[in-house]
């Protein structure tokens, strides 16, 4: 079965990003397909490579990046939500005249249409947030 996953909450806030990650991992382990993970609202904060959590804590961004690499996941950060919160890739940084970008490996910035498309492409769309 095809699953789309939506993450509406930032890392280390309540539990949404952790729950979404565990759900995604369990779905993949069962042989299901993840069409896309869409990071929306504060969820875009999962996609910055500049987080430095304590070494004895989980690294949520790295977990997503590694799971994405292992299963070729499409990790999409909403562009409008990202710009408001300072999540930029190289192109966006250039376009907005900023001196740095911070998008994490394996994530890409795109539009809200990607969420609609994920809904159309997937048998189930599962939302995690607060």
């Amino acid at each position: 079965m095809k699953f789309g996953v939506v993450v509406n909450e930032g890392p280390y806030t309540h539990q949404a990003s952790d729950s979404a990650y565990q759900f995604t991992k369990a779905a993949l382990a069962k042989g299901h397909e993840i069409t896309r993970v869409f990071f929306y609202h504060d969820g875009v904060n999962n996609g910055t490579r500049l987080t430095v959590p304590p070494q004895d804590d989980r690294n949520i961004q790295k977990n997503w990046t590694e799971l994405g690499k292992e299963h070729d996941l499409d990790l999409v950060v909403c562009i409008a939500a990202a710009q408001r919160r300072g999540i930029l890739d190289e192109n966006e940084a250039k376009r907005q005249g900023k001196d740095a970008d911070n998008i994490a490996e394996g994530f890409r910035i795109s539009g809200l249409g990607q969420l609609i498309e994920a809904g159309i492409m997937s048998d189930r769309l599962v939302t995690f947030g607060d």
Partner: protein
Amino acid sequence: MSILHTVNKSPFQKDDLKSCLAHANEGDAVLMIEDGVYGAIAGTAASQDISNAKAGVYVLGADLAARGIAQDKVAEGISVVGYDGFVDLATEHSAVNSWL
């Protein structure tokens, strides 16, 4: 068409679980996750709503454990599932509705 409802708020904090249980139909499933798992403890104000529910009621075991709630504290009629069970519930119902 049946629905899997997920509830992630404690019933002692918000009314989501109560509303969800009242809306869920026969054949639906209600899964308590995150702080929602506090609703699964036996003998609380939420227990009556759960026993009156038409839908099947489930709780995520990992989130119970994370909050130090032993499985023998879970009210009768509630099934404890893992993340694999969460995935199965999502496949068995035609849509997933997250009560956020």
